[in-house]
């Protein structure tokens, strides 16, 4: 049986109708991982034994007739989400052997639905990057072209879903880390509103921006996963107190009469023509469905990348200070004093990009520079939020490209960090403004590489962006990657 392109809903039906057992289903994916992941390198850890055990428990629940939406569904987890008893490395040498003694809240929630965990997926080290090439353990490839990057930082999660090595995965998104790899790998990725999903157990990169979300084959599947992982958590003071809701509730409702904004700065120079044309033709399709396209402007977009890198690096510099090699993680064999030991452990344990951000963040926070850098970035954050508020007075959702280009070659961009950072222009404002956004495939370039578009919603209005993305997906044909 070929499970590679099956969606959660289809698997649900097969499981409930006993056309396949949870164990057989898990086995299919494990087989595919063994077959394809040597080339793809999307997983850091494959949890075959756990998957087998969980499949057994899931089958019992299915047999008892009390299965929920995700019971028995295999899911992959980004390797910065803590899993009790299973290595959680953040793709860093620093945490190479770190086994958390606790589960993240999202893992507890998924386990309570009796999912089947397939493994932990690769990522950019500590989620810092957009290529998954800074991973210390698995430099994931793009399933559509193994010479290209899968995007990042949730590149492992996006690639494994794209290649059919999992029907869905969890990622995390600090500045585009779910949406951009979803776009590069031709799948759908949802970054929820900040506070919608508990961050407890997500190894922090930039605490005010981080959010866990699903990557799946379509918006409807993303809604099912979000249903399972969202909700207020007493262990995360920033999690929203809003009651859980059914994010699939609006699926199928017409987009007719809906107002979709296209801020011109997102379609300006710096965005590849093929991407721009593809997203604009998607806008045209919405228009044909009866939606109204509203032109608008976001003047602060040009400052967004700078603001994002200052805020996220400042927070990261503090969040990553705990990795001193004393209590857990990589410890250097050199160093005669506490300071030397910490210095050597950190020098050896962290990769170049992580070090660059720690330096940048510490600099931005240091006395004498705080106002000029961190202070200004915080002011820009307010401005960007205000501009979004203005735009949302005119529309229901905003449509933008997810990335300025399609997936690039593995050796491109890597030598020029500023160029890499600029590539985040389409996604970072969403995190800065704490908004929800979903990326879905809207076309392919001449070489068959997927192009992603993002639908940005109002705070806590995930249901609407899922509805809008689904409306497009229903009329769009996915071309699976050749690796399949």
């Amino acid at each position, binding site marked *: 049986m070929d499970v590679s392109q099956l969606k959660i809903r289809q698997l649900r039906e097969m499981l409930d109708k006993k056309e396949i057992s949870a164990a057989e289903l898990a086995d299919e994916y494990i087989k595919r991982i063994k077959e394809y992941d040597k080339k793809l390198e999307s997983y850091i850890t494959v949890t075959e034994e756990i998957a087998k055990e969980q499949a057994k428990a899931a089958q019992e629940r299915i047999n008892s007739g009390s299965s929920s939406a995700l019971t028995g569904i295999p899911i992959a987890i980004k390797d910065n989400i803590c899993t009790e008893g299973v290595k959680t490395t*953040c793709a860093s040498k620093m945490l190479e052997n770190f086994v958390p003694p606790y589960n993240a809240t999202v893992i507890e929630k998924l386990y309570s639905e009796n999912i089947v965990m397939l493994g932990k997926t690769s990522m950019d080290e500590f989620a810092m990057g957009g290529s998954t090439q800074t991973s210390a353990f698995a430099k994931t490839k793009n399933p559509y072209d193994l010479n290209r990057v899968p995007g990042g930082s949730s590149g492992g999660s996006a690639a494994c879903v794209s290649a059919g090595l999992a029907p869905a995965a969890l990622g995390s998104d600090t500045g585009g880390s779910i949406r951009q790899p979803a776009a590069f790998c031709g799948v759908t990725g949802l970054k929820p509103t900040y506070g919608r999903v508990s961050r407890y157990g997500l190894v922090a990169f930039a605490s005010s921006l981080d959010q866990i979300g699903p990557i799946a084959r379509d918006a409807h599947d993303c809604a099912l996963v979000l249903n399972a992982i969202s909700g207020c958590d007493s262990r995360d003071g920033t999690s929203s107190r809003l009651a859980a809701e059914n994010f699939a509730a609006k699926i199928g409702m017409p987009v007719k009469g809906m107002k979709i904004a296209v801020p011109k700065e997102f379609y300006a120079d710096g965005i590849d023509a093929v991407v721009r044309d593809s997203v604009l033709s998607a806008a045209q399709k919405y228009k044909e469905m009866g939606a109204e396209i509203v032109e608008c402007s976001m003047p602060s977009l040009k400052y967004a990348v700078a603001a994002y890198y200052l805020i996220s690096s400042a927070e990261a510099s503090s969040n990553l200070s705990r990795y001193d090699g004393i209590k857990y993680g990589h410890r250097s064999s050199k160093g005669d004093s506490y300071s030397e030991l910490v210095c050597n452990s950190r020098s050896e344990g962290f990769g170049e990009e992580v070090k660059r951000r720690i330096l940048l963040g510490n600099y931005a926070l240091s006395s004498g520079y705080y106002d000029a850098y961190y202070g200004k970035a915080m002011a820009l954050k307010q401005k960007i939020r205000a501009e979004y508020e203005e735009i949302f007075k005119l529309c229901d959702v905003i449509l933008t490209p997810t990335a300025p280009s399609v997936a690039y070659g593995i050796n491109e961009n890597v030598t020029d960090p500023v160029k890499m950072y600029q590539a985040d222009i389409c996604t970072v404002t969403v995190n800065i403004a704490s908004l929800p956004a979903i990326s879905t495939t809207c076309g392919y370039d001449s070489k068959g590489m997927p192009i992603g578009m993002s639908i940005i919603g109002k705070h806590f209005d995930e249901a609407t962006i899922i509805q809008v993305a689904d409306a497009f997906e229903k009329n769009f044909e996915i071309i699976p990657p050749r690796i399949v």
Partner: protein
Amino acid sequence: MYIPVIGLEIHAELLTKSKVFCNCSAEFGGDQNSRCCPVCTGMPGTLPVINQTAVEYAVKAGFALNCEINKFSVFDRKNYFYPDLPKAYQISQLNYPLCINGSVPIEVEVDGEKIQKNIRINRIHLEEDAGKLIHDDYNGVSLADYNRCGIPLIEIVTEPDIRSAEEARAFVEKVSLLLQYAGVCDCKMEQGSLRCDVNISIMKPTDTEFGTRAEIKNLNSLKSIVRAIEYEIKRQSKILDGGGKVVQETRRFNDNHGDTKSMRSKEDAHDYRYFPEPDILQVNFTDEDLAAIRAKLPELPEKRFERYTKEYGLSETDAKILVSQKTISDFFNGALEVYNNPKSISSFIIVELLRRVNLGEVSMDNLPFSSKDFAILVQMADEEKVSKNDAKTILRFMVESGKNPEEIAKENGFLISNDTGKVEEVVEGVLSANKAIVEQWLSGEQKVFGFLMGQCTKELKGVCTPKVVKDILEAKLNSMK
């Protein structure tokens, strides 16, 4: 002659049941690393969640120290590497502390006269305590104990209003008292629940600006605060007298030598890279929130003093002694609930109980008997159920055994029945058995009365007071004239 200019930073651990950002016990002690969890040891992915009781206690401290409470308050991260700080940052407050602009009145002596002086409080903010390091020089290792890590602390920062070691001591004592009355800190300096940093500079009376200050870190007894300040005044005076300049630096007090040594200079000072803590939401209070917290604030010493003097008519001296420690005042209040005679209770506490406390026989922190039993004893003495002298003995037995006063009185025959029939019977018996003595008395030898009295009381021990015996004996003898 120089004028010392002193400001204090007092760190007080709050008496919450659990830590400030997790559910671990905040109690003192426990086996090493038995009171910590992934959150307070800063494991990857864990998040702090603010303990609302800690916030409430910090606000109560603010009220007790006459502060304004900020309706909008923010937590910040203070970043530095040290092995007792597992996250490598301390969650604290920088620009928007919970409380500002307070003042604490202290009594100071000027030219032999006691006057009141206000020490202004700049701010009170809430933060987390760090762990403890134990250095094992024998094995050449340092060990970390994270039990203390995450215990809620308030930092109380004064303005530079203090002018002597004695004022500093009076201030710390007063703050301890207020925090204890507010019920937010036990202020046990020997256990580290109250610690103090001293900022001190000296200036000439003619100077218009303060001198350069030194900061002396982590003083953990009133005695070391006083000694450190006195040493610093001498040290800085010597430098200025010799034409030198005091350098701004952090110094450490050595209890064994009674001196201070430089820890780090201004140039080596940490850059803490403060920024707003993204994991904890800002704290917002409404007027109703603050009124509700204020309503929960226990009665403070000034209020009690007023009640004791005005309502109960106690002398100011006595009232002052009673409120000088919360345990004494609480004990007094408790006793009144059983026997509402403030003057009697107060005098028995001050004269008898505190005497035993001062002798070191017993401590107010763990009396072996209740305020209720104490009240019963005072009432028994007042109602002449036991003699005043025996009451003192009973208290001694209570201190020793913790038994209740009635039991002790019964066991030792201290109870007075005042059965006059019995007294008359005994007196008559004594008189008829000592006819010769009675004749002596009747012939004018007054001094033999004592002998007769002694014979009677010997047989009447525990039956009645000597006064009753004396009255009846006198009456009988007079009737024989």
